[in-house]
């Protein structure tokens, strides 16, 4: 009797695969409806509320949380903090996937997505902030793709192409920082055009600065958060360098996040002073604003500081997750909750279930792509045939 054959293949029906499969199937179904029947069939958008969660979440949150790429590569290659080197590739990958999914989500949100290249070929004014955002996102997505490509080229064994791309690292990093500074702030500046629609506690002449500074917090927190998840689920993919540097990355980024959050808190308070919006703090919107200001800015600032002082990585990692949630809350507040605050409740926006399904679909694509890439490419370990760059 022949001996039975044993294989070490993982079962296909894992909880992750089942949940991801259901989300992707529903997302594909909604995609067909969106592109055959239009926005009206799949969204609750209206003339009052032309921007829903595909902008408020997929774009505003997506771009902010993808900031880890430029923050980490700037720390490593521009400021020379080589002890964060192991965090660069995962951060660049997260940034690249984040921006790619932002562009994917825009195809759903824009009424005629085939016109997305129009800002470059049918020019209607270079002074438009949307042109600035379009140009920077397109260019930065290209930069992130090139920055990410050495890992893919190592996986494919294309040594010569990889050598050429690696030489561009510093130039690409500088380019990435410049482009990120421009469009992270421009996304906030978009709301400068609507001073009467955005609640006075969130509207500020400094809103562009708020978006940029909070994106730095988002980037730092996201690197720590993503590193925590990677350690938990991809520990076997990590080499000694990643395992050795991980605690230092969390401590260093936690300290930077505490410092930047302190500055962000001060800027937000000065923002209230500059628009003399103090009286609104005693209203319902004021209470929610204070939840954001104290609960999602001051509290994580203090918690990061305590975590860094005590070298308590658990506190730092939980605080990073809390900060990521804080960025989501902030972008939701600006884009959805505090926007059109004066409208009667019957006219207010609440997302259609298909909008939520597409947002989940987009996030799931990102998670599946991340899982595939870190499983196959040298992201969490250095390829033995290549020198670090």
């Amino acid at each position, binding site marked *: 009797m022949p001996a039975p054959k044993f294989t070490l293949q993982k079962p296909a029906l894992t909880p992750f695969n089942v949940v991801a499969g259901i989300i992707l199937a529903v997302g594909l179904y909604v995609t067909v409806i969106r592109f055959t029947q239009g926005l009206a069939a799949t969204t609750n958008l209206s003339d009052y509320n032309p921007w829903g969660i595909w902008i408020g979440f997929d774009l505003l949150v997506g771009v902010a949380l993808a900031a880890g790429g430029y923050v980490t590569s700037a720390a490593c290659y521009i400021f020379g903090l080589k*002890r964060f080197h192991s965090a660069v590739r995962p951060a660049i990958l997260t940034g690249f996937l984040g921006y790619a999914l932002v562009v994917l989500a825009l195809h759903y949100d824009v009424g005629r997505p085939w016109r997305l290249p129009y800002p470059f070929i049918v020019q209607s004014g270079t002074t438009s902030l949307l042109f600035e955002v379009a140009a920077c996102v397109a260019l930065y997505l290209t930069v992130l793709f090139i920055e990410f490509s050495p890992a893919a080229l190592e996986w494919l064994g294309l040594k010569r192409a990889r050598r050429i791309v690696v030489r561009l690292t510093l130039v690409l990093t500088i380019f990435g920082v410049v482009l990120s500074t421009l469009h992270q702030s421009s996304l906030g500046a978009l709301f400068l055009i609507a001073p009467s629609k955005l609640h006075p506690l969130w509207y500020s002449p400094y809103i562009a600065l708020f978006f940029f500074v909070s994106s730095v917090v988002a980037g730092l927190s996201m690197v720590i958060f993503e590193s925590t998840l990677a350690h938990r689920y991809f520990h076997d993919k990590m080499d000694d360098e990643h395992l050795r540097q991980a605690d*230092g990355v969390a401590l260093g980024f936690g*300290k930077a996040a*505490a410092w930047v959050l302190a500055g962000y808190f001060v800027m937000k308070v*000065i923002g209230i*002073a500059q*628009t*003399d919006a103090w009286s609104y703090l005693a209203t319902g919107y004021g209470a929610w604003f204070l939840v954001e200001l104290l609960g999602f800015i001051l509290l994580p600032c203090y918690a990061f500081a305590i975590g*860094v*002082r005590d070298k308590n990585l658990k506190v730092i990692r939980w605080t990073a997750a809390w900060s990521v949630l804080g960025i989501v809350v902030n972008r939701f507040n600006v884009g959805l909750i505090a926007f059109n605050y004066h409208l009667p409740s019957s006219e207010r926006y609440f997302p259609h279930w298909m909008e939520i399904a597409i947002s989940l679909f987009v996030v799931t694509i990102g998670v599946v792509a991340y899982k595939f890439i870190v499983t196959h490419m040298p992201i969490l370990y250095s390829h033995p045939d290549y020198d670090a760059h």
Partner: protein
Amino acid sequence: MDNPIVTLHDFMLRTESITYILVVAVLVSFPFFWRFLTDRDEDSTRPDGEHSSGKHH
């Protein structure tokens, strides 16, 4: 309110005065926060930036 805001000057005087007070408070308090954040650093002068084990080399 005792002094209602009527003119742009009133508004600027009020908002800028409060902002200046806030900025001075921040300039005074930030060094303390920096000290709070860093005073337990084991050895920040090491060129490689790695955390020492408590011994100076």
